[in-house]
């Protein structure tokens, strides 16, 4: 560093091991004072090469490999793959299996959104909310564990159906758990929209306008918080969603608060769906026989993961192994929005903005670099001036 002149811009590297996020990713923020002027991210720490590995093992093995793309939304990955392969093989899973798939997908959405609520609250320094939401999340984890046999990576799907049935005991446990979670979610919705301390960290922060959202191709709850309806469950229903219509949740503000509200309101929709599925569970078999080699062809399957649209392209050449499996995860579409919206924001808000899209690096294992030069004027200030400025600034913010 040279003395005599103050460098105009600092670059702040964060990661790959960092205290806030539990996943590896390297960020580089250039800042002008406290304002972010550019952001780059280097991912790939969790890049394992799954798409290639999928070409070298058989169709059944791939189900479990692809399920492990992401531990948080594992079931939805497996569902997308199963739906695609079943399409190729011209087989349809029985209605009861479809209903169980959707039931678990919605339970998974509940677990994922509650997890996100806690982690993002932790980013905001609101550890009380983090601890309480994770305590309540254990309710849905218990349900999933007793239903599927594992807390994460449920392995509920198999090609041609599901592995297990929903018993009366399960049904009762789910109903009890959902009732409890519904009252808790109402409480949390109240907290994130009325608690003054928290709202100051979220309202008007990291705004993605409707135009930006459309232009950047944002998807999932992040898009829905900006007033863009992108929900595969609504637009192109699959599995049991064809019989049980989903009411989309839309907010228009596009800021962090709206993202909280959208995800929490989606939880109520999930609770409703879970109740409806349990009520209207069709009778019948759990799975149908699948050929070991699906016919040659191409299939596309799109499903709605907790983070947004998940896209699978599967190509078969009639052999034991797939010819190509392409996975496009929701975080890939949303990551660009973070780096764009982070520019011009306070550095202290960046972790919140990043967490706001519910990023998942394991899903993503790709990287994005978007740099935008800030136009903030640089000047050398005395300590006194800086203090006055900061006080005035925060008074303005309040």
């Amino acid at each position, binding site marked *: 560093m040279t003395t005599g002149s103050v460098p105009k811009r600092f670059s702040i590297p964060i990661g790959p091991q960092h205290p806030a996020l539990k996943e590896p990713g390297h960020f580089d923020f250039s800042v002008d004072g406290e304002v972010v002027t550019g952001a780059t991210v280097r991912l790939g720490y969790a890049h394992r090469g799954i798409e290639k590995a999928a070409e070298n093992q058989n169709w059944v093995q791939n189900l479990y490999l692809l399920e492990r793309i992401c531990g948080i939304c594992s079931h939805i990955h497996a569902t997308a793959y199963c739906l695609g392969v079943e399409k190729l093989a011209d087989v349809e899973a029985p209605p009861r299996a479809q209903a169980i798939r959707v039931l678990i997908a919605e339970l998974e959405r509940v677990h994922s959104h509650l997890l996100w609520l806690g982690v993002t609250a932790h980013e905001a320094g609101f550890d009380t909310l983090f601890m309480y939401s994770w305590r309540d999340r*254990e309710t849905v984890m218990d349900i999933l564990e007793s239903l599927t046999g*594992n807390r994460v990576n449920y392995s509920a799907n198999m090609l041609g159906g599901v592995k297990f049935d929903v018993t009366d005991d399960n049904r009762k446990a789910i109903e009890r758990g959902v009732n409890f979670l519904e009252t808790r979610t109402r409480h949390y919705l109240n907290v994130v929209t009325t608690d003054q301390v928290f709202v100051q960290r979220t309202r008007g922060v990291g705004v993605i306008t409707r135009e930006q959202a459309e232009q950047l191709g944002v998807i999932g709850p992040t898009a829905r918080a900006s007033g863009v309806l992108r929900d595969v469950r609504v637009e192109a229903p699959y599995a049991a969603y064809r019989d049980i219509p989903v009411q989309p949740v839309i907010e228009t503000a596009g800021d962090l608060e709206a993202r909280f509200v959208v995800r929490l309101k989606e939880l109520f929709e999930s609770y409703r769906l879970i109740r409806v599925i349990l009520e209207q569970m069709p009778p019948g078999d759990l799975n149908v026989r699948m050929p070991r080699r699906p016919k040659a062809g191409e299939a596309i399957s799109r499903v709605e993961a907790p983070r947004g649209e998940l896209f699978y392209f599967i190509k078969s050449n009639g052999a034991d192994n797939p010819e190509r499996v392409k996975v496009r995860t929701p975080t890939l579409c949303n990551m660009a929005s973070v780096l764009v919206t982070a520019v011009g924001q306070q550095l202290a808000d960046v972790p919140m903005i990043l967490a706001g899209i519910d990023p998942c690096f394991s899903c993503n294992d790709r990287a994005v670099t978007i740099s935008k030069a800030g136009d903030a004027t640089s000047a050398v200030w005395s300590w006194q001036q800086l203090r006055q400025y900061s006080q005035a600034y925060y008074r303005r913010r309040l």
Partner: protein
Amino acid sequence: MKIGSMLVDILRSLVHPPATQIYPSERRPAPDRLRGKLHWNPAQCVGCGLCSKDCPADAIEIITVDKQNKRFVMRYHADRCTYCAQCVKSCRFNCLQMSPEDWELAATNKQAFTVYYGDEHDLQRLVERNTQPDAEPAKTG
């Protein structure tokens, strides 16, 4: 707008019983469907090898001891296993089961994770065959 909207939770927690489970001193029974360590029953096995073929992690090896009399030994790697239970579904003779009891598998060395299942007599024969220097290597499949 208000401040401290979670204060009620905190106050309520003062009188509620704790949510914490004191795990190592008190062991809560796991759910029946829990997928723990794999167990193999050799009685029904015909050695089709579908379990090891469908295993996403190569955790199962079926070793043929005597092909004519259908004697097999299974080598199971608990450290490779993804606990997905595909093998249980693939087996048409219900030889495999995932135990809801065996899930505390932590160990300080890796040898503990390689487990041999099978008839005692077959295991003995396998050991003999492997100790003989000119014996053909154990066939897997």
